């Protein structure tokens, strides 16, 4: 007997044999058993997850000679013919090769006639998204008024390409990709039934490479059986799949963990021979460090998709939580800097060397435990000294600085933004001590905002006794004065002096200095002194002499005021 590929040989013949897709199977089984089946179904999902298989089983369920049920007998002539793909009332169409409207019309011409042998005519249209616009319209007319003896089963990998009118006529089921565990278990089952030798690590590799598709997994298994001459073992499968990327990342991190520079360099050289995309390797390293950090904190969070469990546990033993944190930071910075490196390999090498050089301080003075031996090493002590200095520099400027802004988020200070500035700790004045000289001090801490702030800053002190305060506002600013604002101000003053204050604001010529005027004056004074210090600066003078330069006075700003602005 000729060899039949595994995917065909082990294609499920009934719902019970299917792996995964429980949600779809349950809905379909219930509908079949209760005899209330929608007239059109749309199955979506990637390659090899069971779209066509489900459709075939459904065709059997509907036409089985033992009656409609979710479990067709598989023994009667109808079931056998469907399995063998030669049942007259199951019309299978590959839409990808028959996209034209003539094809669709021809197909649908016979829709109205009763089935030849079965109960239902089942139209299975695969890759339905490939139909042309006219073909869809032709199909739509039938879908809108389907004859009772017809069921449509549409399958596609790409439901977005279907017109909404078609979607609205079909009950849509999304088939999910299969998990690695599922595929692995199924491969194992098949190999046991086929009586072939295998290593489960090899099956894990195959399952991962199948990328969610059972059909791909089975054809890879076919290949692996042929490759290993009837036995599926890990080294063969690894060779066959050519999967290297992940294991290089582990090797690099292993070398880092053992703090061995020469091995690290050797690993990078090996990696370079594969001519990889170095930025992708760095990204893989970041991902791996990320998983390591997670497993350090929550060991149970391991998932098959992360990669090799044993390599991870080995790395977790040899790396401390601090190592991981630091490597991650360095790798993140490295990712940013990588495009700036003269070439990508150098960039990645520098990142890894940096990780090697800057291990977290464990109390010993030596940062590099085994420096790389090179024939031209000039001055070992000097080199170590420099790196140590750099360690300090980086940890101060590079790592800590960006964290400061985020600190407030991490510490969760609810009031960072909302609290008014209360850093002014000057002693509160008593109302009787108030005078034209210290009035501005009160104004600066009143916390008035908007127009109220403008108003109070443009008002001058006139007189005071124990309970009343008289202010004056120049007629040019009197427009801001309303009784409402006056009351608000009075309230703020009452708060400030911690006792009732009666406020009288009169419109009058201003005789003393208002806080606003005081600000202006101080600003001007600061400006003048800044300009002075520039002009009288020796260096500036030298430059002016040497290049016959001029100072552009408008650009001179007193330094303290720019700080206040920012």
């Amino acid at each position, binding site marked *: 007997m000729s060899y039949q590929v595994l995917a065909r040989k082990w294609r499920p013949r009934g719902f019970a044999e299917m792996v995964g897709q429980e949600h779809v199977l349950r809905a379909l089984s219930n*509908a079949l058993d209760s005899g209330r089946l929608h007239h059109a179904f749309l199955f979506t999902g990637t390659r090899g997850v069971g779209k066509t298989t489900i459709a075939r089983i459904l065709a059997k369920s509907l036409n089985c000679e033992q009656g409609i049920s979710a479990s067709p007998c598989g023994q009667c002539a109808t079931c056998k013919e469907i399995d063998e793909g030669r049942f007259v009332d199951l019309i299978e169409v590959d839409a990808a090769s028959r996209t034209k409207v003539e094809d669709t019309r021809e197909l649908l011409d016979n829709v109205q006639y009763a089935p030849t042998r079965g109960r239902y005519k089942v139209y299975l249209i695969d890759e339905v998204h490939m139909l042309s616009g006219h073909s869809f319209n032709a199909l739509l007319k039938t879908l809108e*008024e389907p004859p009772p003896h017809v069921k449509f089963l549409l399958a596609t990998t790409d439901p977005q390409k279907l017109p909404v009118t078609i979607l609205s006529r079909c009950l849509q089921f999304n088939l999910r990709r299969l998990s690695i565990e599922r595929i692995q278990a199924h491969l194992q089952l098949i190999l046991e039934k086929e009586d072939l030798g295998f290593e489960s690590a090899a099956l894990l590799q195959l399952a991962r490479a199948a990328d969610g598709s059972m059909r791909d997994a089975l054809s890879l298994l076919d290949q692996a059986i042929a490759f290993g001459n009837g036995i599926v073992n890990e080294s063969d499968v690894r060779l066959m799949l050519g999967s290297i990327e992940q294991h290089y990342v582990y090797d690099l991190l292993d070398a880092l963990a053992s703090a061995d520079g020469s091995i690290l360099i050797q690993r990078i050289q090996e990696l370079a021979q594969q001519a990889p995309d170095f930025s992708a390797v760095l990204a893989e390293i970041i991902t791996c460090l990320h998983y390591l950090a*997670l497993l350090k904190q929550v060991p149970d969070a391991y998932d098959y998709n992360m990669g090799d469990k044993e390599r991870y546990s080995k790395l977790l033993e040899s790396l401390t939580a601090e190592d991981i944190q630091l490597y991650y930071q360095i790798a993140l910075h490295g990712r940013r800097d990588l495009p700036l490196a003269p070439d990508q390999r150098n960039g990645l090498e520098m990142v890894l060397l940096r990780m090697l050089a800057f291990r977290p301080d464990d109390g010993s003075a030596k940062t590099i435990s085994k420096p790389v031996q090179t024939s031209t090493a000039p001055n070992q002590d000097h080199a170590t000294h420099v790196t140590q200095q750099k360690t300090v520099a980086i940890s101060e400027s590079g790592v800590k600085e960006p964290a400061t*802004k985020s600190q407030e988020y991490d510490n969760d200070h609810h009031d960072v933004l909302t609290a008014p500035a209360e850093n002014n700790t000057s002693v509160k004045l008593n109302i009787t001590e108030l005078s034209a000289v210290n009035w501005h001090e009160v104004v600066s801490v009143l916390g008035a905002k908007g127009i109220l702030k403008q108003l109070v800053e443009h008002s001058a002190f006139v007189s005071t006794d124990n309970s009343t305060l008289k202010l004056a506002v120049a007629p040019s600013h009197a427009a801001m004065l309303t009784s409402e604002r006056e009351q608000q101000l009075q309230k703020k003053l009452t708060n400030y002096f911690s006792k009732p204050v009666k406020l009288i604001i009169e419109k009058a010529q201003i005789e003393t200095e208002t806080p606003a005027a005081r600000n202006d004056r101080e600003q001007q004074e600061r400006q003048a002194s800044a300009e002075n210090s520039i002009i009288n600066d020796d260096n500036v003078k030298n430059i002016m002499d040497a290049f016959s330069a001029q100072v552009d006075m408008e650009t001179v700003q007193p330094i303290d005021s720019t700080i206040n602005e920012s």
Partner: protein
Amino acid sequence: MKLNFNQLGSHLQKTLQPVYFISGDEPFQLDESTRLIREAAKAQGYTEREVYHVDRSFDWDQLLYSAGSMSLFSERKVIELRIPTGKPGDKGCKALVAYTSQLPEDNLLLIVSAKLDSNQSKSKWFKAIDAVGATLAVWPLEIQQLPGWLKLRMQLRGLQPTEDALTILAEQVEGNLLAADQELEKLRMLYGEGAITAEQVLGAVSDSARFDAFALVDVALQGDPVRVSRILHGLKNEGEDVLHILGALMYQLRMLEKMARAKSNGQPLEQIFSQYRIWDKRKIVLSAGLNRHGLKRWQAFLLVAGRIERMCKGLATGKPWDELLQLTLRIADVALFPLTAEQIATR
């Protein structure tokens, strides 16, 4: 005569107009109204049916020929005209006016069109149709109408949902009536007719990635890092698009941020929950999260999520899946690395 969607059923029981014009951009109601009209026509002996799609190559004379020719097999026929652009053009205008001025006795004309702009709805042909037949414009459902609509549709199928079940369904389908109708059909397939509980709804929709994204947020709020990692890897493994998950996550984060804001303003949690129509079991989950993180954190989470979105779209460097795992773990109170300024930068 102008009709609205809700009147159509009772209108068709009383009378059948010679011309129906249905327009709008909400596919479910369009579909449902044509179905109702088609069925009413069939019951009155319009057994034949011709469908024409109006595209550039469509010959409007065909409409008049068809109207003029007798049906071979039956006495009466339905002519369906699809106008996906909503603009019949000059020739179409003439043909439609001609058709309405001399209505063929044994024909029913059913026109389905995209939403009309104001020019078209004032046009000569539209007025001509309105004068002799019925026009119906369908509109997308307002979000407040959705629970009522769902309840009605469920009762039509013999399903009796609980209040919680309705709330969850409404949340899940987010205004997509087509998807909603399909979910209801699947509910009936899974559980048969009768009462539908919140648990059943959650069990039934578990095949949609949206649901997993919601579950992801819930386990994160409950502070379960192991399941966060499981679900996220499961989604990744199933080839789910990271943007889908992120969309659902951001939807929840925005809601939580608003709740956290209300909470920091001193509003009691119970009041906030009733305002957002949160169902009972979810209240426990949400209050766990709201008690764990304050407003500032939720805002930071939103910013991080925004950055992940930019990553997906190539505007920031990084691996979206890794960052998504970090973010959800952080919500679950497992901080792998300190937040960097870069992560919460707004640009």
